[in-house]
């Protein structure tokens, strides 16, 4: 995971899920974060879109399996 993207993503995750000590891993999924459900998932996506000034499609969001996939998508859109 790109370090700059990881740092910015970590800040977003900590704010959205209200977990100040959360450490991101590529393999991390919704099962690893108690507050990460279908409602907060969209809040997370909106926060990511605002922070990185990118736009996801429904198909792209549906294909996200873990934090690593999200970071890769952001990286792809920024390049």
């Amino acid at each position: 995971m790109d370090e700059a993207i990881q740092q910015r993503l970590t800040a977003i995750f900590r704010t959205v899920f209200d977990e100040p000590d959360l450490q991101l891993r590529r393999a991390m999924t919704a099962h690893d974060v108690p507050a990460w459900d279908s409602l907060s998932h969209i809040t997370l996506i909106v926060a990511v879109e605002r922070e990185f000034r990118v736009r996801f499609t429904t198909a792209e969001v549906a294909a996200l399996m873990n934090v690593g996939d999200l970071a890769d998508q952001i990286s792809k859109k920024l390049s």
Partner: protein
Amino acid sequence: MPLSSVEFLLFVALSVIAFRLSPRRGRPHVLLVASYGFYCTWNPQMAGALLGITVVCYYAALYVESSRGRPLAPRITVAVVSGLILYIVAWKARAVLSSGGGIVIPLGVSYYTFRLISYLLDVHWGTVPAERSLVPFAAYVAFFPQMMAGPIERASSFLPQLGAGGTADRGRTFEGVMRILLGFFKKFVVADNLALIVDYGYRHLGSGSSVPSALSFYLYPVQLYADFSGLADIALGVGLLFGLKGPENFDAPFSASSISEYWRRWHMTLTSWLRDYVFMPLRMATRTWGTAGLIVSVVVNMMLIAVWHGFTLGFVAFGAVNATFLVVDVLTSARRQKFWRRHPGLLRAATIVGMIVTYHIVSLSETFFRAPSFADAARLLGGLGAGLHGFGEALAVVTAPPNHYAWIALPAFVLTETADAVRRRRGMGLPAGLPRWARWSAVTCLAGAFVFMALLFLARKSATNPFVYANF
């Protein structure tokens, strides 16, 4: 072929034997023949429609995958998915409009169309590959144990298992038989006995006492849960006999401390289906609307769950009650969580209070689900405040023959909930390392119980209550 019949048990046994004796490559063919054979015993005239729809979706998915990026591919997805939605809507509407005029909804129409829609959307989004072989795909769509009331299994879970020929070892067979027995126990001992008491309540709503209303109000959710989860247990148990593990449909829903949590534990394969294919796309489309987008997504999602059961005012009211409380729940969730973090000492009490409140919301919404009419629902709810006079009389009636055995349902429910809790924690297979005599004793007891159940089916001359969710 009713599930609670010796014919069904024999059909399952013969299908499983044929499946297991076949070479791995031939097993999808056996399962396909068995599934269509089962379907024809219910709806022979609609088996052709099932096959036609399956073939269309099979080729549509192959085309969508091979033509990704071309403008026609998304149009094909939209056209086929819209066609499937219209197909369900048309049947449900016909059933309502005919109002008992002899229209029979094709068996499993809601379940197999949902399987097909999810498959097509997954292929369209590129999250699953299109199945190359028609036979396993058709066996997935028509898989007979899940045809009557789900669970709604995804292609990505089912097809790899079938491709491997199923994992039909002794452990899964034992677990499958246990699961089938548990399902029939839930249906015949818990649900059917509670139905006697709930029906009594509905027949005596005008008695001037709150007892009939309270009995129906508080016991119907348990009756419905035992009935539906029993059906799911039978479906999953039969699947295990083929060596195919299906998705769980329930996770102790009455332990939920909020209505959102309840819906994550009840009919889980339907709610997760709607989450992935309705709620998420809708939420993505409305994500810039703020709170209004959230409310619209929650309400639309819940109302779709409601009308999925049928186009009646009762189901609409069922959805409206749930949607109202769900909106309140999601809008206050963040504040409540912050409050409980500041007051962790109160959390335990709040969880218990939450469970009680949630059960009341569920009972309220399911009153509209069960009541024959709006007027009956209103009489039942009005009757709750009528006072406890006549309690002794009502009790005497519901404990007199022919209902005198009905109350066995309550301890039996505690027993099945305990069995389910153990199953979730440890599974239902034989514990490893058991001595030979204990293993054989357990297998013999299980076989004896199964034969006893079959004999009971034979002895039951009168028709049994149909499974509630077999109607959807």
